[in-house]
């Protein structure tokens, strides 16, 4: 067996193992919140995750994979000895694999994406020299690591703010939830479809011009919106259990309070009989308010909120699927990017001529992720699902909306980001909008630390593994 064949096998195994690891550990972060809130059972979550992760990886994983394969390290530098690049990519894969096993054993929150990117940068800079790295691309990547949790948080904050104002703060939560659902679906689908279709599927030769893209996205969004409208209308609004003489309406009470305040103002600025008459008027208003208040059904608000949560349980299923899709698209690149670079060199004997990752490799990555999910990942989802029950469907929906759109955007731009950090940012966004009972902000400190620490460590491990491989094969 020639050296090339051994290396080829090793690269395939390492790439597949990394993909398996992603399925086993990372997918749980995307789906766990939906299981915890009760929107999905574990079985449904795993099946949906498998389908959408694979689809995301296959149809949309090319952008980020291209970046990792050829957007970080300039392979021209290794034209004289292409095998060095192979060792480097293999070192990145295996080194990261070992680092991740160690980190998960100790419970450190380490990002696969950051480790691989750090490893490739480290290898490229040390072995190939400073000029071997596309520093402007790397700058964008670093920026995206900081911006993605912030953006996820902002969008989630905004969305939950809308939910708060339009649903929870109104007197008719269920009615307003029903009205809001088609709109939310429409906006969500349109953002995603536009991102996907706008030159997004070119690597499988699917091209649409601008008008076609807009038309398809509007049409698809409208269809989803319509479907959600019919589904939501099938849900009953709870009505008061007994017949009341006057229907309870908090808007009336608020308005009466305002009227009373204005009357008091008038009363204080007038004298004599006018003042006396104004005080009589404000007494009348007091009586009116209290007669309104007595007609309230105390059980009504409780059941209304329960139904709102049920509606958003359904919505959360959609956002969970999109999270899985986005995660597949962004993270499959961690395994397939290096693999693709290495295989291309091993099979052609020269450095990369094209910068496009072949579809079969994306499919291979997808299969690896699904296998990881099926053999180990479901257990992790179960664990997370049991432990995270604080996230009700409304909160989960807002957080996943923010996270999914951010990750899809980053994937479209070809930027490898950490889906977990983005989700954490989104959940913090919901918490800042007063949506969560207790948020431990020490996790954000851990994320800051991981930004600083992962690159050097990833780089160091990759370089060490590289020299090891050089010893064995060189």
């Amino acid at each position, binding site marked *: 067996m020639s050296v090339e064949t051994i290396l080829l096998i090793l690269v395939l195994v390492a790439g597949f193992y990394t993909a398996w690891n992603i399925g086993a550990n990372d997918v749980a972060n995307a789906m766990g919140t939906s299981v915890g809130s009760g929107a999905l059972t574990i079985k449904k979550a795993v099946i949906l995750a498998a389908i959408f992760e694979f689809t995301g990886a296959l149809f949309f994983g090319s952008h980020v994979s291209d970046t990792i394969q050829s957007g970080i390290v300039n392979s021209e530098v290794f034209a004289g000895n292409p095998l060095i690049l192979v060792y480097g990519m293999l070192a990145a894969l295996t080194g990261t694999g070992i680092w991740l096993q160690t980190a998960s054993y100790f419970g450190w929150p380490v990002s696969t994406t950051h480790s691989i990117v750090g490893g490739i940068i480290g290898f490229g800079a040390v072995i190939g020299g400073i000029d071997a790295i596309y520093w402007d691309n790397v700058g964008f990547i670093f920026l995206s690591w900081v911006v993605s949790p912030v953006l996820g948080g902002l969008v989630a904050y905004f969305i939950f703010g809308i939910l708060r104002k339009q649903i929870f703060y109104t007197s008719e939560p269920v009615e307003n939830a029903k009205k809001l659902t088609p709109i939310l679906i429409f906006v969500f689908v349109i953002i995603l479809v536009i991102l996907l279709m706008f030159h997004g599927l070119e690597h499988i030769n699917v091209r649409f011009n601008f008008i076609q893209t807009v038309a398809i996205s509007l049409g698809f969004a409208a269809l989803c919106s319509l479907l959600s409208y019919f589904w939501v209308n099938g849900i009953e609004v709870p009505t008061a259990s007994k017949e009341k003489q006057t229907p309870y309406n908090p808007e009336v009470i608020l308005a009466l309070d305002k009227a009373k305040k204005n009357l008091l103002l008038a009363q204080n600025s007038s004298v004599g009989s006018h003042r006396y008459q104004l005080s009589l008027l404000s007494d009348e208003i007091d009586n009116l308010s209290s007669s309104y208040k007595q007609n309230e059904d105390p059980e009504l608000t409780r059941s209304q909120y329960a139904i709102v949560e049920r509606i958003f349980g359904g919505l959360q299923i959609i956002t969970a699927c999109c999270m899985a899709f986005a995660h597949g698209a962004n993270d499959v690149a961690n395994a397939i990017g290096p693999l693709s670079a290495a295989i291309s060199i091993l099979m052609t004997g020269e450095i990369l001529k094209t910068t496009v990752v072949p579809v079969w490799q994306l499919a291979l990555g997808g299969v690896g992720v699904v296998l990881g999910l099926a053999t180990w990942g479901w257990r992790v989802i179960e664990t997370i699902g049991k432990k995270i029950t604080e996230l009700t469907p409304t909160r989960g929906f807002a957080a996943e909306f923010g996270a999914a759109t951010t990750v899809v955007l980053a994937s479209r731009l070809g930027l490898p980001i950490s889906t977990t950090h983005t989700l954490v940012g989104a959940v913090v966004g919901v918490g800042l909008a007063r949506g969560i009972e*207790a948020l431990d*902000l020490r996790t954000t400190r851990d994320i800051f630390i991981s930004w600083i620490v992962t690159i050097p460590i990833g780089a160091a491990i990759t370089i060490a593994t590289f020299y090891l491989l050089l010893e064995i094969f060189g």
Partner: protein
Amino acid sequence: MLSAIMNLFGRSPFAPLQSHMNQVSECVRHLKTLFEAVKRKDYDEVQSITDKISELEHEADVTKNDIRNHLPKSLFLPIDRGNLLEVLGLQDKIADRAEEVAILLTLKQIDMLDTFKDDFNEFLDKNIETFDCARLIIKEMHELLESSFGGAEAIKVRAMVDEVSFKEHEADIIQRKLLKSLFKAENEMTYSSFHLWLKIFETLGSISNLSEKLANRVRLMLELK
């Protein structure tokens, strides 16, 4: 990486706050049977109920300290942390007052005279009623969290707060009536008994005052237009 998401959710203080209120409620509940025993002049029973109340108050203290120990600065809450701690402190004070009333009754074998017996019953009932309204407000906390402290739920709670205020006002009026009855009977008891009854009325009255303060603190958490 899974630990990142799981560690993001801290230990919520709201459920422990509600169970603390339930413990305080247990203390206050026993006051009714306590004064029944005083009427019957069953002073052994008075002592045993007082011991029970002391025990319950201590258990409530343990819960209170547990809550305080688990509120680090890094925990982000949907309401002002100071407000939450104040509500907890007020709940704790109510339990303390209930215990104080019980202990005052054990200091000497005191008599409840017929002259102010009825007024006193009214006073006791009104105080317990005021506290009960405050307890129901704390019970609504779960719904308030769901609705992010706004909307129809907040309006409902605000109405409950107004009710507590009104009941506290009624308790004040009854207290004045009760004190007048006590003064009328001043020659039928020793000065020490008189002084002790004054102390008991004062401490009992503070239960409704504290309940009103507690209700107002909760009102500060609400998001109302």
